[in-house]
């Protein structure tokens, strides 16, 4: 899952080498914190959070099979972008 999210983020930003994904396992859900270069924040979020949201939808679809919950947070994004879960 981490590699999957990393791949998606790296593919939409200008500085893929600065992409870092932290995995934070929890009891019910695994949280993924996505770090990108400050200049890439808009690229990872998209207008009205559309890109971050699409990545979140795909991460959930991928986790569905294992019946796990997934939270995806873009570090540095406005709260409303990260709340859409």
């Amino acid at each position, binding site marked *: 899952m981490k590699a999957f999210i990393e791949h998606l983020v790296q593919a939409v930003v200008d500085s893929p080498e600065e992409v870092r994904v932290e995995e934070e396992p929890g009891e019910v859900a695994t949280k993924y914190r996505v770090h990108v270069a400050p200049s890439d924040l808009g690229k990872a979020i998209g207008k009205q959070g559309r890109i971050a949201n699409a*990545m979140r939808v*795909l991460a959930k679809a991928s986790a569905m099979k294992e019946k796990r919950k997934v939270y995806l947070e873009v570090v540095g994004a406005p709260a409303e972008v990260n709340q859409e879960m």
Partner: protein
Amino acid sequence: MSGSEERQQASAEIAPESLSESARSALAIVEEICSLSRLQMRPVVRDSDATYLNIELVGEDAGVAFGRGVNLDALQYLSNLIVMRQVHGEVRVVLDAGNYRANREAALRKLALDCAAQVKERQEECEIDPLPPHERRIIHNTLLDDPEIRTYSEGEEPNRRIIIAPR
């Protein structure tokens, strides 16, 4: 016209070797996303023209995970975003799984025709709820040849919507 009827009927697999270089690159992008998703699914090319590359997701997980609009649209949106960044030449990926698009297209065509009938009867504009660009295109194309009405879009994505108006 769109040729979408032909597209729906085409169910043979198109060999990647017969595709253009940019279409092959686009296919590789979708393939990589599928394999990294760890879901049991792979993309199969059903049709392609100068611009559009129609791909069906097949495999054990395709129908369950992507036979619904939200997931399919998210994958299609991200795939095209990546394709636009990485592939030279205009190529657009259209994804389907579990016949979702075909069913959706039939429903949108019916919606377009129903609204058009109402517009003609009342001679008043009819506004359709916001739709993504590829779905608006289906509405536009369905009504393109109707001499009594015209269609146009209003608003900004993702709230852009079609207005059907008397001509």
